[in-house]
């Protein structure tokens, strides 16, 4: 039967567009503007889904997404909220959780078992025997529940954006519209959010005699639409209230995280159901649902309807619905307290009124509502009213979840029958029916007053504080709309199929506090989060325990007040990985890449990633290093310059080692502990000058060491600059007997053993590139660690490979390096050590100086050095199963754990498996037999051995022949942009600009609304030290005074003061003074250090970038600050500097670490494509910006 009415004023349908979809295999007609449920109701269907536990037929309850009666699934999605979801033409929707379809659901049989399935039945019935519980659990989970995830379809992710405003108004009913209009009128930036498809709240469907022609609502909406300082977000819900007034608005397109200076909560109330026998039959619905059907979707809800009136307002609803053409025949007054005149008006309008009545039960025919049995006139009349709809109008309860999360407190106002706010935190205001204000004029007045209070919070002048209107004087909810029946089935929670008997059982068994009852019965824990069940649950609990409503209290409404799709929570996938300058080379040459902390590093170079191929590759690479020469990318090492008068003081405090005898041009091994004496990092420190040191750290600790050095400099008020160079410099370790010969062919540094001894550090050119070279012996061969600019690291690597080919050079990966250093007995901090290891346990005790009066960890190390209980020792295993020894296996002696394996590998030079074990001190003597417990439990014998396993006297450092310095002409090596490869080769080629290779467009530029450009060719300089200001003054440039501020230079250049004594100069895209400054020759003076800096440099051109930055950056936008508005911040998890270039088009610039460059560029480009933007190249900048 078609229940659709002719077109009505105010309906949400677009009748010009109609289509059909399938429901349970049958076609259903719909108009644009319909929801799935409204279209199903228009087709005459009342049973739309099955319930969670007993598989009872369910239909419309609120039609406002406040219940979860009608959850559907399609081929693409599940748990679809049919009440508010527009049907897709041709889609096939089915009810969730049925066995054999909605109509013939075999699960109905569970209803017969209801007496033995009370709340929590499975804990009582199936706990014994315990081994069967998993089986029962699976069965129960299968029988009860919600939808299944569709296997088809790609996983979806949505963007999560930040938005900033002065006043956020939640709820667009009368008070919300009034508040938003008042705040907007005062010039505040306003966001108005409403859960329904269109703003208006109750005024859309149940206006009573208020705003009867909708003129007020229409006027406010027009006002808001015309204002450019208002954003109206419809069809979205504010899901939580977080600290600092941050509210996630869950929209169809993802989460909008709104940060507001003040919040007006005009969330309104949820209409509440009555509790009586069979109150869940399809056809029993909230009065609001019937009103929505009629007025928004032009559907006649019934042929003969009955309204349960619990409040005087229900009479107004009934009169209005009847006047609007609803076939409402009878009104059952449950003791509403309506004045006699109102009762007479209802009778005069043709309604049959039963006074002083109670509902006994809803009667069904074919599983759907057919009548309502009542007792009226104080029980003197018992009758059954034939009807096909029961409209519940027994009262409302406030939507107070956000208010409580904000820190507000509620009290129950008995006269009103409603919880009202008793205390609110600063910056939060409640208005409208949430505030207990119900009459239309009062709601409007309350909204305006709340807006004025919110404006005052934002520091906006308000003429005078507006008085709040008085709260309603008559009850807005029936005191106890609960009507028990001897045969039960009075549903309190429709989500979880909970009836009065379940609540009674909970109380009887002692779960009589509101929080305990919730957990025992799961009331309010279903998908509608108790919107329609919590208040009735509290009423029942109060009644059963003889307490009043306030004494019972309420459960805590935690985030989220409404379920949020996982896709919205997940947001965009932003998994950052640092790439070295050699990343592309590794991939092109068979590097088996793996994550090492944030870095991606090659394990080895092999044709396939299988274990056998890797083992063969490691053996080959190992042989090359031991017998010829190999090279490894060690760009991941942390690299830090320390410069200033207090440089030594900082090092002496930060490290337990002594720097007193570290001569200029030499390095020493250093290790760092924390205050508890735990080893946290190690590396090499080179002395480059009287107050200039160069430090390396382990790959994983570079950021932490910078952080700690900055901390110590601040704590001790030291005059020293700490310059982070980890990403600006690449590093290559060239090792093997032929290393000297290979390097000599490319370098002007004198490599003779006398001139460049072990542990020395020299500066010079390698393949024409300025480099710092240190003689280190980590892998146990003659070796040079070459530190050089990141942009030219790959070119130098390739030059070394070419020169080395005559010597049998091979690149080696991390796996090979680990084996090489293991043979040498070298410890890897963080691998052989953990968060409890101190230097004395790993053989570094002798390097802990006792001569210093003060350094980090001194007191702890003083104690630890006297009581060493375990030690890292070497071992050899020659057993046939020695290959099964793995890291972290335990050493077992006398049946107890005596230690663990920290490193292990098959050593070709020893001809056996060797490794390191952290064992009890007494067991760490060479020659001692220990036992390692293998994975299968077998105890395998190993023998403790002295380390190193290889070259104990460091003779290999003297290997190779002395050679003369290179006389070959320097190579012309061009720098390379870290994102060259990110430009698609179909549209772009490369070009060398200012000595830097970057992308260039092949054809014509496409049309786009925003652009992303790589500006790697613009020079950067760091000017460091106490003499930096003077350095700039000598070049007639006044520098910014405040740290983290900047000044524009030339067309689009910039000088920024990035730290206490650190300035960054960014070259301009057009030659001029700025550009010349950024090309200043790097070098060192007594108090100033000029360094060639390397960072990824992108231009973001076009207004669309504001949207993208609002997604990727949690810091507030800088629109109000004058350019350049320099800021160091976090963008897509990367630490960057962001600033603006003035011009015709909005333009931002980003400086990022070269290691982050590719990830950041790809992320920005991906976001840009969604916004209709495109990539562009450096040479297009003038054309794009009109400069």
């Amino acid at each position: 039967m078609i229940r659709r009415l002719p077109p009505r004023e105010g309906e949400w349908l677009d009748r010009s567009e109609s289509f059909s979809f399938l429901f349970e295999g049958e076609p259903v007609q719909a108009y644009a503007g319909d929801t799935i449920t409204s279209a199903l109701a228009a087709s005459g269907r009342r049973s739309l889904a099955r319930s969670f536990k007993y598989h009872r037929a369910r239909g419309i309850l609120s039609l406002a997404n406040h219940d979860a009666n009608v959850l559907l699934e399609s081929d693409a999605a599940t748990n679809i909220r049919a009440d508010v979801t527009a049907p897709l033409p041709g889609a096939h929707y089915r009810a969730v959780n049925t066995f054999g379809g909605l109509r013939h659901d075999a699960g109905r049989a569970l209803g017969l078992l209801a007496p033995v399935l009370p709340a929590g039945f499975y804990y009582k019935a199936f706990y014994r025997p315990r081994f069967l519980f998993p089986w029962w659990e699976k069965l129960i989970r299968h029988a009860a529940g919600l939808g299944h995830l569709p296997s088809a379809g790609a996983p979806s992710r949505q963007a999560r954006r930040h938005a900033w405003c002065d006043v956020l108004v939640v709820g667009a009913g009368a008070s919300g519209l009034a508040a938003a209009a008042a705040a907007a009128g005062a010039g505040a930036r306003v966001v108005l959010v409403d859960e329904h498809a269109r703003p208006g709240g109750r005024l859309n469907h149940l206006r009573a005699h208020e705003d009867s022609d909708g003129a007020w609502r229409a006027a406010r909406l027009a006002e808001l639409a015309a204002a450019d300082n208002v954003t109206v977000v419809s069809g979205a819900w504010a899901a939580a209230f977080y600290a600092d007034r941050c509210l996630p608005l869950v929209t169809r397109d993802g989460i909008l995280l709104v940060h507001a200076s003040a919040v007006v909560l005009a969330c309104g109330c949820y209409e509440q159901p009555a509790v009586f026998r069979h109150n869940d039959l399809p056809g029993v619905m909230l009065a609001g649902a019937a009103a929505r059907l009629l007025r928004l979707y032009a559907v006649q809800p019934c042929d003969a309807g009955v309204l349960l009136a619990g409040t005087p307002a229900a009479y107004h609803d009934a009169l209005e619905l009847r006047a609007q053409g609803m076939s409402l025949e009878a009104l059952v007054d449950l003791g509403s307290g309506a004045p006699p005149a109102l009762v007479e008006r209802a009778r005069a309008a043709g309604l049959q009124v039963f006074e002083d009545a109670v509902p006994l039960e809803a009667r069904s025919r074919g599983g759907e509502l057919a009548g309502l049995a009542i007792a009226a006139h104080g029980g003197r009349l018992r009758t059954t009213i034939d009807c096909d709809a029961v409209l519940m109008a027994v009262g409302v309860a406030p939507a107070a979840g956000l208010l409580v999360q904000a820190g507000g407190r509620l009290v129950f106002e008995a006269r009103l029958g409603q919880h009202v706010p008793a205390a609110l935190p600063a910056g939060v205001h409640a208005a409208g029916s949430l505030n207990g204000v119900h009459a239309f004029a009062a709601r409007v007045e309350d909204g305006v007053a709340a807006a004025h209070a919110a404006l005052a919070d934002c520091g906006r002048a308000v003429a005078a504080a507006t008085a709040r209107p008085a709260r309603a004087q008559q009850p807005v909810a029936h005191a106890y709309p609960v009507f028990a029946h001897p045969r039960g089935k009075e549903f309190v929670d429709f989500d979880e199929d909970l009836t009065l008997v379940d609540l009674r059982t909970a109380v009887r068994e002692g779960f009589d506090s509101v929080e305990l009852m919730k957990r025992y019965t799961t009331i309010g824990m279903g998908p509608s989060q108790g919107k329609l069940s919590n208040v009735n649950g509290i009423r029942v609990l109060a009644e059963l325990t003889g307490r009043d409503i306030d004494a019972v209290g309420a459960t805590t409404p935690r985030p989220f007040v409404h379920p949020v799709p996982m896709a919205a929570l997940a947001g965009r996938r932003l998994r950052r990985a640092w790439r070295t300058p050699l990343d592309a080379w590794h991939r092109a040459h068979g590097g088996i890449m793996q994550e090492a902390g944030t870095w991606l590093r090659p394990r080895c170079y092999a044709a396939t990633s299988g274990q056998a191929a890797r083992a063969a590759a490691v053996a080959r690479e190992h042989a090359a290093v031991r017998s010829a020469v190999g090279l490894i990318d060690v760009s991941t090492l942390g690299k830090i310059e320390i410069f200033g008068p207090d440089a030594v003081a900082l090092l002496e405090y930060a490290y337990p080692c002594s720097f007193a005898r570290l001569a200029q041009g030499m390095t020493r091994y250093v290790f760092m502990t924390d205050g508890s004496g735990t080893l946290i990092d190690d590396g090499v420190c080179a002395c480059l000058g009287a107050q200039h040191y160069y430090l390396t750290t382990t790959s994983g600790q570079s950021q932490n060491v910078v952080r700690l050095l900055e901390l110590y400099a601040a704590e001790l008020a030291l005059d020293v600059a700490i310059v982070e160079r980890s990403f600006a410099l690449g590093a290559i370790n060239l090792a093997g007997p032929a290393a000297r010969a290979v390097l000599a062919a490319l370098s002007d540094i004198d490599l003779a053993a006398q001139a460049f001894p072990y542990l020395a550090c020299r500066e010079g050119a390698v393949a024409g590139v300025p480099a710092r070279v240190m003689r280190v012996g980590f892998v146990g061969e003659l070796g040079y660690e070459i530190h050089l600019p990141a942009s030219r690291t790959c070119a130098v690597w390739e030059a070394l490979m070419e020169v080395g080919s005559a010597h049998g050079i091979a690149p080696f990966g991390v796996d090979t390096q680990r084996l090489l250093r293991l043979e040498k007995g070298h410890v890897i901090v963080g691998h052989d050590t953990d968060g409890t290891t101190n230097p004395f346990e790993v053989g570094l005790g002798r390097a802990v100086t006792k001569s210093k009066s003060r350094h980090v960890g001194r007191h702890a190390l003083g104690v630890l050095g006297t009581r060493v209980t375990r030690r890292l020792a070497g071992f050899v295993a020659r057993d046939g199963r020695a290959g099964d020894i793995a890291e972290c296996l335990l050493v077992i002696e006398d049946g107890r754990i005596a230690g663990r394996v920290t490193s292990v590998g098959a050593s070709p030079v020893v001809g056996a498996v060797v490794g390191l074990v952290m064992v009890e001190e007494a067991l760490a003597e060479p020659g001692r037999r220990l036992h390692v417990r293998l994975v299968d439990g077998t105890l395998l014998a190993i023998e403790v051995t002295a380390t190193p396993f290889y070259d104990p006297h460091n003779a290999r450092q003297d290997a190779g022949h002395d050679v003369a310095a290179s006389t070959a002409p320097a190579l012309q090596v061009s720098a390379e942009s870290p994102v060259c490869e990110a430009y698609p080769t179909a549209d772009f080629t490369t070009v060398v600009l200012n000595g830097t290779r970057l992308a260039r467009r092949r054809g014509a530029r496409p049309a786009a609304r925003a652009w992303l450009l790589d500006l790697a060719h613009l020079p950067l300089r760091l000017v460091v030290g106490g003499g930096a200001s003077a350095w700039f003054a000598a070049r007639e440039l006044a520098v910014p005074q405040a740290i983290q501020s900047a000044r524009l230079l030339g067309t689009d250049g910039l000088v920024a003061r990035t730290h206490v004594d650190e300035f960054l100069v960014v070259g301009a895209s057009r030659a001029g003074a700025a550009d010349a400054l950024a090309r200043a020759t790097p070098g060192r003076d007594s108090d100033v250090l000029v360094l060639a800096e390397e960072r990824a440099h992108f231009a973001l051109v076009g207004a669309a970038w504001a949207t993208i930055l609002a997604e990727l950056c949690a810091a507030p936008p800088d629109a109000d600050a004058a350019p350049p508005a320099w800021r160091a911040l976090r963008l897509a998890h990367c630490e960057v500097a962001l600033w603006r270039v003035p011009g015709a088009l909005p333009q931002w610039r980003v400086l990022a670490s070269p290691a982050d460059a590719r990830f950041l560029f790809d992320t920005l480009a991906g976001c840009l494509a969604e916004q209709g933007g495109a990539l562009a190249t450096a040479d297009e900048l003038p054309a794009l910006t009109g400069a």
Partner: protein
Amino acid sequence: MKYADFPLLGRRPFTEFSISGVLEPEPAELGEWSAARWVFERSSVPRERVEWWYHGASRLWFRVRRDTGSDVILAIEPARGGPRP
């Protein structure tokens, strides 16, 4: 999401910082304190205290005076690089 107004930086989300609690430089002498107590003993009593917060993007440390009872920030100052003398 929590935010605060930082000197030198402006309004920033807490997520940009790593927060290290109360820190003190290692003293040359410990006085009556034993090494173990100095290393390990920390008070968690809710109170007003000065915490050290590190902003990774700018490599700046801040001293943040915060009441851990009410979680209200009372003052923030940069640990280095205030106005130059």
